[in-house]
């Protein structure tokens, strides 16, 4: 309940406050969003399987976002930023799909 409220409040804040993203942070924003989505889908699946834990979620969310941003940052420094971004997105997308498939099975039994 708190979680859902948090999500709604966050989106509302972002849409209405128009936070100015610093220019150095902009390349990492899309990747961070995908990483955050991965953590969210994992949390939803864990909730449905009855093993959700707040601490695990917070840690997985923060570390996901930081590691994804760090990989892209390192890639940019090494000149392979776009390739590494692609790699990160592929891995996270596969995880999101897997979790979404599991959520679908839990919810609809199919």
């Amino acid at each position, binding site marked *: 309940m708190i979680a859902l409220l948090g999500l709604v409040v966050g989106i*509302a804040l972002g849409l209405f406050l128009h936070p100015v993203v610093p220019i150095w942070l902009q390349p990492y924003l899309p990747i961070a969003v995908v990483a955050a989505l991965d953590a969210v889908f994992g949390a939803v699946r864990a909730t449905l399987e009855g093993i959700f834990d707040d601490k*695990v979620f917070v840690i997985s969310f923060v570390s996901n976002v930081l590691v994804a941003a760090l990989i892209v940052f390192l890639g940019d420094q090494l000149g392979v930023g776009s390739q590494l971004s692609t790699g990160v997105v592929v891995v996270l997308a596969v995880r999101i799909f897997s979790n979404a498939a599991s959520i679908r099975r839990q919810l609809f039994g199919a």
Partner: protein
Amino acid sequence: MPAAAQTRSRVDAVPQLLAQIWDEALDPGYAAVAARRSDEVDPSDASPSRRRRRLGAGLSLALVGLLLAAAIVQADASRPAVAQRRLDLIARIQAQTKRYDAVTRQAAALQADVDRLKSAALGATAAGQLLDQQLGRLELGAAQLPVIGPGLRITLDDAVTLGPGAAGDPALGRVLDTDLQMVVNGLWAAGAEAVSINGQRLTSLSAIRSAGDAILVDYRPLTRPYVVLAIGDPKTIQAAFTAGPAGGGLRTLQQTYGVRYVVQGAASVALPAAPTIELRYARRVAGTQGQGSP
């Protein structure tokens, strides 16, 4: 878990790495904590630390929403910027082209002044008059004077109905720089003495090339339709052009890609002078005489 077994068999074909990512999609931390918790007798749900963690999850999700909205707003805001940059570039190209035209016109006016003064100065003496005549012939040959005479008018334009070779790709129905090169080469081969494309007189230094989708003649972009004028022997030039390789090439272009063209003989076509040709590095070989006739 039957679900896991099911996915397992489905992903067996994909590389091991992706299969592992798929299988371990759920953070293993959840399972580990759940296993630890089941060992405890009664996980009290109301303990203060537990409530604090709830709040942490809520805050994290708020952050997720914030990130999501910020990214969307960001992507939305940067889209007009790209379009704006494109418009700026187009405006700059148009402004520079206008400036080029103005400067060229100014140069032509100044050149006319120079010619008049030159003729006046040379006309004073008999030797000067002879020199003036010789200069006139040279300038005629070097495309430095407007000319008029019988010849050909060739009009090319992009395809309206694509030919069989361009099915599904309108870009293939477009007139290319190489097409214009072919036409101009065909005209020279057919005995043309002067050629212009869309009012741009071709000289010994002219280049027909493309930049992006635009065709440039001497760095000036052309817009369709492309009108090529040529002066030559009225009795032979049209037949020679049509029978030559360029005529055949045009027919192929029309049949294969649907490119439209018209070749017309003309009793009189007028071609403008080219901008002054300036040779900065080429010098006359010592001991040779300039020829008076083109």
